[in-house]
């Protein structure tokens, strides 16, 4: 991760160069998002590369959390990096800007697991989950957690039950593993779903939830602090391979197989997608006539 500093430098140099004589809409706006968005390939550098969008400033907020939502809602920032499944987008009437150039790659949910723990039984259980998971279902789950303040644990159990996946079995018997999650609710619920299902099938499961960003938990996976985590195929690919160009679900999935370190594997990907999105308030969208990220590069 230490070369990310360099990409920050190059990103900022680029934006300075294109600030130019013509003022784009973006040049009047401030973008907010998590710290690593500054340097991620599909973050600030990607927006510039794919759309020529250069914001007037970047404010470090949290990862799709309340700070980001409040900052966007109250006008501390004009655009923010949020997740498409986030119920607060609808709740606050935020507008998701289209991403026609697929700056944000496909983000299918899939389990990332250490090879040693991916026994046939475990694989079977997790693939069974992926088969039942879709974007709408994911949104519903998240709404229960985020809006209804239901317990992720309970939500996970309920979902498994609803999907008929709660039958006890012995597929994963004898396996001991630690399920981790990133530090946002969706990841937590997904991790709980994995954990509950594996428990139902006889595994000895411990959890380490809310670990933080990918930069924190992937090393954890590599060194065995955790064994399994729900992932998004586009993000993890980009994290593993800065130069990855694949954007469609299948391309990404294929590229991911090659990019993974030897001791990790990904299992089947689900249909559920939850990608990053650039979001603005309704007022901002109306004021500048924004529907797509590309609109930000227009002059006004």
């Amino acid at each position, binding site marked *: 991760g230490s070369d990310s500093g360099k990409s920050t430098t190059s990103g900022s140099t680029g934006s300075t160069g294109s600030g130019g004589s013509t003022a784009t809409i973006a040049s009047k706006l401030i973008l907010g998002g998590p710290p690593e968005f500054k340097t991620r390939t599909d973050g600030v550098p990607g927006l510039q590369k794919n759309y020529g969008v250069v914001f007037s400033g970047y404010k470090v907020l*949290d990862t*799709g*959390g*309340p*700070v980001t*939502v409040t900052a966007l809602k109250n006008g501390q920032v004009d655009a923010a990096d949020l997740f498409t499944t*986030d*119920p*607060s987008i609808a*709740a*606050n009437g935020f507008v998701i800007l289209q991403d026609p150039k697929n700056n944000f790659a496909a983000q299918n949910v899939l389990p990332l697991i250490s090879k040693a723990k991916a026994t046939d039984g475990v694989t079977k259980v997790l693939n069974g989950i992926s088969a039942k998971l879709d974007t709408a279902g994911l949104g519903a789950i998240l709404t229960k*957690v*985020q*809006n*209804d*303040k239901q*317990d992720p*644990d309970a939500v996970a159990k309920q979902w498994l039950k609803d999907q008929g996946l709660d039958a006890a079995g012995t597929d994963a018997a004898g396996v001991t593993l630690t399920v981790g999650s990133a*530090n*946002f*609710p969706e990841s937590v619920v997904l991790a709980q779903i994995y954990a509950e299902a594996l428990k139902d099938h006889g595994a000895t499961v411990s959890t*380490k*939830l*809310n*670990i*933080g960003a990918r930069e*924190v*938990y992937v*090393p*954890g996976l590599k*060194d*065995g*602090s*955790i064994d399994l985590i729900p992932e998004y195929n586009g993000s993890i690919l980009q994290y593993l391979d800065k130069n990855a160009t694949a954007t469609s679900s299948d391309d990404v999935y294929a590229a991911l197989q090659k990019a993974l370190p030897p001791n990790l594997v990904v299992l089947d990907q689900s249909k559920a997608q939850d990608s990053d999105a650039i979001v603005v308030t309704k007022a901002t969208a109306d004021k500048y006539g924004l529907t797509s990220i590309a609109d930000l590069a227009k002059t006004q």
Partner: protein
Amino acid sequence: MILADSSSSSSPLHFWGYFLDHRAEDLRWLWDHTYLSLIPVVIGLVIALPLGWLSRRYGWLYPPMVSISGLLYTIPSIALFVMVPPLLGLKSLDPLQVPIALTVYSVALLVRVVADGLASVPEDVAQAATAVGYKRLSLLFRVELPIAVPVIAAGLRVATVSNVSMVAIAGTIGQENLGRLFDQGKQLSTTGPYYPPIVLGIVLCVLLALTFDLLIVFGTRMLTPWRRAVVGR
């Protein structure tokens, strides 16, 4: 904005209901928080005793010890938590990272406290003890340390209470403890303030800190009957 369906349960006072709903997890975090705050102080004291004794005995050691411990204390805890694994070659999410970092803080604080505590032993008492024929170690354990208990205990109270607060910071980087309640509360406040986990976390942390404090005060009273005798007169 407050959503109609969550208004009742998001009241700050609902933390008790929240606790009951998540009892298993909260109790586990409470337990983790307890030993994470406590063990560093215990280990810290064990390390600080010889160091403090040394810096008392060899006066020139005292100023550098005090400066070093002051400097250690300025390192932000979050930075220290993350620096510990790479510096010690541990796994990045090693459960030891928090206790080790907090032990560093505790030692930093307690070395000085131990030295000051030993210095609080009246000179004539130390001399009387030497004169009746105490050897150095028994002098330390039978006379000096017992008399230094009040000063050392005062330092322990500060160390333990601030540890409770610092352990919570480790909750924000994924370590399991009451700090997780804050992260959780923050996450759940995305669509509107959701107080119960935050308030619960604060309440449990404060209770924990106060419990430690009371235990130390009580322990001090037990260990120093002579002070009570005078006060109670």
